């Protein structure tokens, strides 16, 4: 029997995407990972350019705000645009983008359904921008762990114990956002 070389794919370099981040990669060795409760993660990839990215957001305003648990669309649109712009900078084309959406769970009964509102925002954004949504796993009451290979657009989404989900931390706009400088 002749010995054969067995191809063992290199181990992926796992990169955690934290709330408020948008990361993009064109490296086949990298895998983005995140754990979601009420938050939503958008995974985008361009199958031709072989580049992908993930963001992770929670848009609900704090309960003390005048409008209660509304959704701060300015920050959501910003995080989506940040993800898309980083992908375009690495050779992706907007009309080729394919999307997955995960998360948006309503973790505690009796509390405002902020997960559902975040999920609605994400779906509506993709629809407005005409980005094709090919898979979603949104809502329910379970926390999720999402692993995403950006170059292949391959996603694994599993339910995990609620305790693993990060604490609800409503988004704060970046300190630099909205600043006006006249030349």
């Amino acid at each position, binding site marked *: 029997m002749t010995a054969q070389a067995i191809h063992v794919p290199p181990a992926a370099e796992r990169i955690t995407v934290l709330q408020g981040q948008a990361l993009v990669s064109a490296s086949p060795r990298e895998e983005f990972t995140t754990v979601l409760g009420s938050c939503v993660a958008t995974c985008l990839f361009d199958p031709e350019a072989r580049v992908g990215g993930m963001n992770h957001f929670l848009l609900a305003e704090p309960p003390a705000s005048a409008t209660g648990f509304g959704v701060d*669309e*300015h*920050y959501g*649109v*910003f995080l*989506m*645009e*940040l993800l*898309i*712009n980083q992908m*375009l*900078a690495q050779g992706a084309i*907007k009309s080729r983008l394919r999307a997955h959406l995960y998360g948006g769970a309503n973790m505690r009964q009796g509390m405002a359904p902020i997960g559902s509102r975040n999920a609605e925002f994400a779906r509506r*954004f993709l629809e*407005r*921008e*005409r980005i094709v949504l090919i898979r979603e796993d949104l809502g329910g009451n379970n926390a999720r762990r999402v692993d995403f290979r950006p170059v292949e657009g391959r996603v694994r989404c599993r339910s995990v114990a609620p305790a693993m989900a990060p604490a609800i931390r409503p988004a704060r*706009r*970046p300190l*630099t*956002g*909205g*600043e*006006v*400088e*006249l*030349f």
Partner: protein
Amino acid sequence: MSTAPNQPTRVLTVDDSASMRALLNHALASSGFEVHQADDGQAALEWLVVNDVDVVITDINMPRLDGFGLIERLRAGSRHADRPILVLTTESAPEKKQRAREAGATGWIVKPFDPDKLVAAVRRVAH
């Protein structure tokens, strides 16, 4: 060129994101501005050949013609040489800001924008 007294200030927003255009339209129209919108620099350039506005607000990263190209093309002609142009962008790199300044931009605003600050900036440069 300013509008006549009692006429609303006319603003052209240039952004390839439909979601961003909706946010801008809401922020500006609810403050009394007359809002026109283009979805990239090329569409804005073509619209401005036959239309006038008081202020242009443009994104940077857009297909066909980006914000830098739009500013350079508008500044190259006499018709829009003095038109206030505000850049509204997710870009935060100083070299991008410098490039916009050299191209002839009037101001630089970083997203996510604050509607009150945006409205104040438009009022300030429009007069």
